[in-house]
């Protein structure tokens, strides 16, 4: 029975279901209890599952992830919330040197089913550190999986799958889309967690995006359609592993590719997509892979973020440039 709900609510429902069905699932983080998180994603969970399952932690991100690792070693499946993208870095050491590597270190004898939820990206007019897109910094690190939904249904199902995964998953939530609504069918049979999805079919050029940029790319495709151009939009859903096959199939058809993300272009995931798709589709590409993303500068103050973030014009400009080849 599908129901329309916002992305934030879909994650909330997904966490609720996980807490209900698996007594080992825990929710941990700053202000996740009574407050329900600053975005209300954990709203009502502590009330219904108690302080033992939905745990307000001290204000210490390394401590949160480090103790979550210990809890996972004890057989729990912690879902950890980092309050904002810019606050994940105190936990970066635990994530990179412990969470990512312990399974391999133990030759498989240990599993760390920890989900790290990170509301990410800009466009909400916030102060510093509240608008960043650090996904490449996690995707570069072996041992982690990195996913990010773009809509309510994916938010719901990908969270279910992330929690069930025996690998640590960094779950990036597109915070500026938290209130966008979409259908969620809790009885559906979801596809694989790490498969990309063709969100819109097209023939002239492929737009690849994920998380908050998918909506923008769909809008760009609409706009382009009015000018008689048929754009295909691929929603990556997973940044590690990255579903190059789906992108390749699309590019072999359209012969042109533009990658869009909020993260800085330099060494962003678009770089990897460009490099690998160029290798895979060398004789198919009519134009170099173009990238639209953030600049190599600290995320700007709110009144400048519209200039910093990819928008319709910048995406269409890149589309034009690609088609001009």
């Amino acid at each position: 029975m599908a129901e329309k709900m916002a992305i934030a609510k879909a994650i909330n429902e997904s966490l609720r279901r996980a807490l209900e069905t698996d007594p080992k699932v825990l929710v941990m983080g700053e202000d996740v209890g009574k407050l329900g998180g600053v975005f209300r994603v954990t709203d009502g969970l502590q009330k219904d599952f108690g302080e033992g399952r939905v745990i307000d932690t001290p204000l210490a991100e390394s401590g949160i992830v480090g103790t979550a690792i210990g809890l996972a070693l004890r057989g729990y499946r912690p879902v950890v919330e980092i309050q904002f993208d810019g606050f994940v870095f105190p936990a970066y050491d635990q994530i990179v040197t412990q969470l990512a590597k312990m399974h391999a270190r133990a030759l498989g004898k240990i599993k760390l089913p920890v989900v790290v939820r990170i509301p990410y990206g800009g466009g909400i007019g916030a102060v510093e550190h509240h608008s960043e897109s650090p996904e490449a910094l996690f995707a570069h690190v072996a041992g982690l999986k990195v996913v990010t939904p773009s809509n309510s249904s994916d938010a719901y199902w990908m969270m279910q799958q992330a929690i069930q995964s025996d690998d640590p998953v960094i779950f990036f939530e597109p915070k500026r889309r938290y209130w966008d609504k979409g259908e969620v069918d809790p009885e559906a049979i979801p596809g694989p967690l790490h498969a990309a999805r063709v969100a819109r079919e097209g023939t002239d050029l492929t737009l690849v995006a994920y998380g908050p940029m998918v909506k923008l790319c769909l809008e760009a495709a609409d706009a382009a359609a009015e000018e008689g151009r048929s754009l295909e939009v691929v929603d990556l859903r997973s940044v590690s592993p990255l579903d190059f096959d789906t992108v390749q199939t699309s590019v072999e058809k359209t012969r042109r590719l533009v990658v869009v993300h909020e993260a800085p272009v330099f060494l962003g995931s678009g770089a990897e997509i460009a490099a690998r798709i160029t290798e895979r589709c060398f004789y198919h590409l009519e134009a170099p892979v173009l990238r639209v993303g953030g600049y190599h500068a600290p995320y700007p103050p709110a009144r400048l973020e519209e200039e910093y973030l990819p928008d319709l014009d910048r995406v269409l400009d890149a589309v034009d440039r690609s088609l001009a080849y």
Partner: protein
Amino acid sequence: MTVESTAARKPRRSAGSKAGNAGTTGTKAAGTTGTKRTTRSTRAAGKGADPQLVQLLTPEGKRVKNAEFDPYVAGVTPDELRGLYRDMVLTRRFDAEATALQRQGELGLWASLLGQEAAQIGSGRATREDDYVFPTYREHGVAWCRGVDPTNLLGMFRGVNNGGWDPNSNNFHLYTIVIGSQALHATGYAMGVAMDGADSAVLAYFGDGASSQGDVMEAFNFAAVYNAPVVFFCQNNQWAISESNEKQTRVPLYQRAEGFGFPGVRVDGNDVLASLAVTRWALERARRGEGPALIEAYTYRMGAHTTSDDPSRYRHDDERIAWEAKDPILRLRRHLEASNHTDEGFFTELETESEALGKRVREVVRAMPDPDRLALFEHAYADGHALVDEERAQFVAYQASFADTEAEGV
């Protein structure tokens, strides 16, 4: 006296309209018996789990004796007391104005200091001009004492910059949003002060929540090991967003200091006189080369965490009401009135000044221009960076491509 914007390295706004430098007076008064007091205070602070709250003014405004800390405020004149009162009133007014401006959409966010005026003004007024202060994001009262033009604080909350003043003009560092980081910067700065052979001290602010961060505790340890002249000033306002103290710590926070080898004191953070005295004590021992100290200012966040927050979700009104009885401004007013240190003229004049401040803040904020688009690429680096240059050039060309359709940029 009007509120002026601040010139770099000029003497700060004095605490009272005609007063001399209160800090200097206190320093002299206290200098004579410093070492002994240090020892006693250390012992007192470590006595046990019971909060040893240093209080010089009761909530009713009654001056109570404290053998240990009285000397630090022995020289405080009525004029200076009025100055402290004025500081608190104007700070609260500024804060209220900022909250209102946020509601009107002029600011994206505001972090109110409501209720914490005494802790901030008392500690801020204890600093000397050559001291250096590292704030969090809520130290509007300290900024005031340091002579930072309050309207400069609003830039980051409006979203026109990420920090709108020159830290070196008033030895007041930028607001730091990532919780706890500045404790290490303060410690490093203090190590530098010591290397320079200077007798300045450094004052690092942070919250009760921040005390849980590794960085804050590493700062305690570095400060202790290097005997750095840094005072850690923890405003325990009882809440870290929705989390109360017991979510952060098992014992009173001031007790943490001793385990690192320096004294910790809990002061009534709603008592401006006590906050002044204890901070002077700590800064002076730092100057004398006796190393760091931790002050826990026991106070209360009367309002929401920020304008985005809704405290009704996690705390009861009774709590706030109980704390209202301990209001820092009311308390000093009662004391001033009981001591006959003020007349109606003082309050009326202050009200006028307050109005003028509010008006100026409104006007300046509303007139605050959005930054130029190219500011995106400014200051990413001090010495330039080829990629930034390339991206800036592309950006300019891209913007120029709209020149036909648009008359001017956004």
